[in-house]
């Protein structure tokens, strides 16, 4: 036993001296759950790409601010023609890409044409569909002509998929991203971390951080120990369940905000018995949103009645349409001729809101006689079976793209929902840019979805941010999938 004691004493001593002292900090380590497949926001749908690069490395003509508002970025200012179809952008001058090359109007034309080309691999081609042609007036001015007026065009140009890239480096951005942002790319250790450093030739006010490392932590269980041990100082998207472990710790700040993520119980509207309205309504009545939020998201997140984020100015509160009423649900099932219930499958993608929410919903639906078999699936299988082949009964997913109520009007979208009335409202919405008219149309859209109980509307995915108490400038909400570090600094 003497041997054991000496070994233990030696290791403890040696390790203690190794920890780093706390200097005034200009570096930051941020924990993110998923690793981006590559580093070119214009060529991939994965949210993780934007979470690392948006606003930090790449910039677009416009930029979405912390409240979801559209701000000028590489476009200093712009004028819109009366018929709302031609936009003339005045570009900032003296802007350089990280490899030192000049930024000018040609880069803008190249980026927009590349994104809307037929063979483009851009994940959001729809954003550029309205563009007719792009003309370079002079190195600092670009004229964009649309096929028809589009209210959301400026907002669309703020998306991560619409950032401006240089022709010389466009193809190599996947591995070595070159943008115009305040940070430039330094290193990517696959499966481990992505490091950005302050760019020395930035056109705007320089970032206060010298170095920012995005460390990939896939397992929610590792968040708390990483925080407590000081390895990682900030989790923009922290695990709701683990919040209880850190909320009373003075070293950390817990910031609850909202996201554009409508978490819903999607229903396959064409598959019997879900094609009957009473069955879908019975399901909505059976759902106890409060219990789901408590169980699946540690009580954080607001319930929703339709497909719109409460933080959105055009939100209509329809949560009262289907209060939790087991008796009413059973009655509706009887009406639909299914009084002794039925069996169905519930396919759950990996995120915690789905896996936890799924168990609660299965238990709640079991109370009204609907016996659900839970089938956990990975994203690859979910996309293949649910999204593409529509081989599912029920599933749970959070649609985090902003302003995406139009998905219910898309042909062969995985809901299998087809309501011409609703499609008309959406078509009108796309054509109008007048705010009041848009608000009225959006209200109608939300009401139709609620009445048709197309899906079980659960709650808005909360943005649970936890970071070091001495850290300032991180966004409270997530109007767009991004971690804008431009304003982030240490207070001491």
């Amino acid at each position, binding site marked *: 036993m003497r041997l054991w004691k000496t070994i233990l004493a030696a290791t403890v001593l040696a390790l203690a001296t190794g920890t780093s002292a706390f200097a005034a900090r200009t570096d930051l380590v941020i924990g993110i759950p998923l690793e981006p497949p590559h580093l070119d926001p214009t060529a991939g749908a994965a949210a993780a790409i934007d979470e690392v690069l948006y606003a930090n490395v790449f910039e677009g003509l416009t930029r979405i601010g912390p409240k979801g508002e559209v701000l000028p970025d590489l476009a200093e200012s712009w004028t819109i023609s009366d018929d709302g179809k031609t936009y003339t952008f005045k570009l900032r001058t003296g802007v350089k890409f990280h490899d030192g090359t000049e930024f000018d109007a040609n880069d803008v034309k190249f980026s927009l044409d590349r994104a809307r080309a037929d063979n483009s691999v851009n994940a959001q081609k729809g954003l550029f569909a309205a563009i007719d042609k792009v003309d370079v007036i002079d190195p600092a001015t670009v004229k964009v002509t649309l096929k028809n007026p589009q209210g959301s065009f400026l907002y669309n140009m703020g998306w991560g998929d619409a950032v401006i890239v240089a022709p010389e480096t466009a193809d190599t951005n996947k591995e070595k991203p070159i943008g115009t942002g305040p940070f430039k790319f330094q290193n990517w250790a696959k499966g481990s971390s992505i490091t950005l450093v302050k760019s020395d030739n930035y056109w705007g006010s320089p970032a206060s951080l010298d170095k920012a490392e995005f460390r990939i932590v896939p*397992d*929610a*269980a590792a*968040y*708390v120990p990483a925080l407590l041990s000081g390895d990682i100082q900030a989790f923009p998207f922290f*695990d709701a*369940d*683990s919040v*209880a*472990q850190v909320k009373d710790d003075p070293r950390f700040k817990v910031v609850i905000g909202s996201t554009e993520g409508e978490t819903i119980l999607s229903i396959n509207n064409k598959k019997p018995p879900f094609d009957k309205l009473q069955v879908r309504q019975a399901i909505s009545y059976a759902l106890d949103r409060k*219990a789901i939020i*408590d*169980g699946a998201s540690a009580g954080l997140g607001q319930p929703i009645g339709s497909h719109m984020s409460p933080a959105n100015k055009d939100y209509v509160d329809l949560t009262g349409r289907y209060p939790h009423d087991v008796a009413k649900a059973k009655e509706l099932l009887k009406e639909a001729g299914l009084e002794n219930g039925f069996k169905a499958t519930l396919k759950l993608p990996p995120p915690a809101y789905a*896996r*936890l929410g*799924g*168990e*609660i919903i*299965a*238990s709640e639906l*079991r109370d009204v006689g609907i016996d659900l078999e*839970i*089938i*956990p699936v*990975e994203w690859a299988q979910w996309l293949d079976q649910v999204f593409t082949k529509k081989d599912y009964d029920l599933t749970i997913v959070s649609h985090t793209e902003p302003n995406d109520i139009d998905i219910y009007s898309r042909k062969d979208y995985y809901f299998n929902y087809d309501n011409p009335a609703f499609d008309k409202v959406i078509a009108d919405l796309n054509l109008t840019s007048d705010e009041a008219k848009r608000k009225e149309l959006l209200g109608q859209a939300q009401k139709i979805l609620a009445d048709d109980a197309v899906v079980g509307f659960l709650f808005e995915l909360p943005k649970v941010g936890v970071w070091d108490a001495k850290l300032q400038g991180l966004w409270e909400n997530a109007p767009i999938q991004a971690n804008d570090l431009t304003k982030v600094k240490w207070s001491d």
Partner: protein
Amino acid sequence: MTLHIDIPEETFSGILAKAFRNSAFVAGFVVTLLILAMAIASYAWTPYDVTRLVISDKTQAPSLAHWFGTDHFGRDILSMVMVGARNSIAVALVAVGIGMGVGVPLGAFAAARGGLVDEALMRLNDLVFAFPALLSAIMITAIFGPGAVNAIIAIGIFNIPVFARVARAGALAIWPREFILAARAAGKSSTQITVEHVLPNIATLLLVQGTIQFALGILAEAGLSYLGLGAQPPMPSWGRMLFDAQTRMVVAPWMAIFPGMAIVVTVLGLNLLGDGIADILDPKSRRQR
């Protein structure tokens, strides 16, 4: 590398009397019996219904109402452990069953036939051993979908070569014995000899290996369900309970302690049982000549 086997020479009652003096056997036997009883009892009764979620009394500490406390959905952890036992034991037991059912005849047949057949079986064994067990189990469950049945198949497959190798080694040690020659002189076929003489004499060896593989099966099932590939909700499993407990370690440590203890106690019990059996029936430990 044949195994030198000394045939234990003892009547059954003698063995039994000896068994209950062997501390490892008694401890292992009692613990395993307890866990089995708990699992079987859970079919009939558990303090609370494991399928009922009561979010309101979420993560309560152990109390008189809930001896092991409640989990993040307000379910009673004691009931979950009891039902979880049923799942873990079932998966491990059937997996061992598959391993033995397929592996032992293969091994015995290879030893009896020898030559090409033996060589072929050994190559097959090497092939299955070459695959990393856990990784392959994950591939299997990824292909056929997670769930207790697929976990059983995944773990079972990797038990086959273990039993094949043990059975073959045991049989190879028995075949050159003189009583086998006598049986051959009595005109018995190699299959008859395997069934009548070889298998009974390597039974203890297989029993000991069985308990060890059973214990490893419990751990493998826990690992698979920890990764979410074992039994699916609402069926509780110990590994899954540990996974859920991870994010609440500081706030609700009991969520991790009790399922962890259940795994440790079960595996410990089985290993002790295995050791006990080996000691009792191992002639070397008793030979004082």
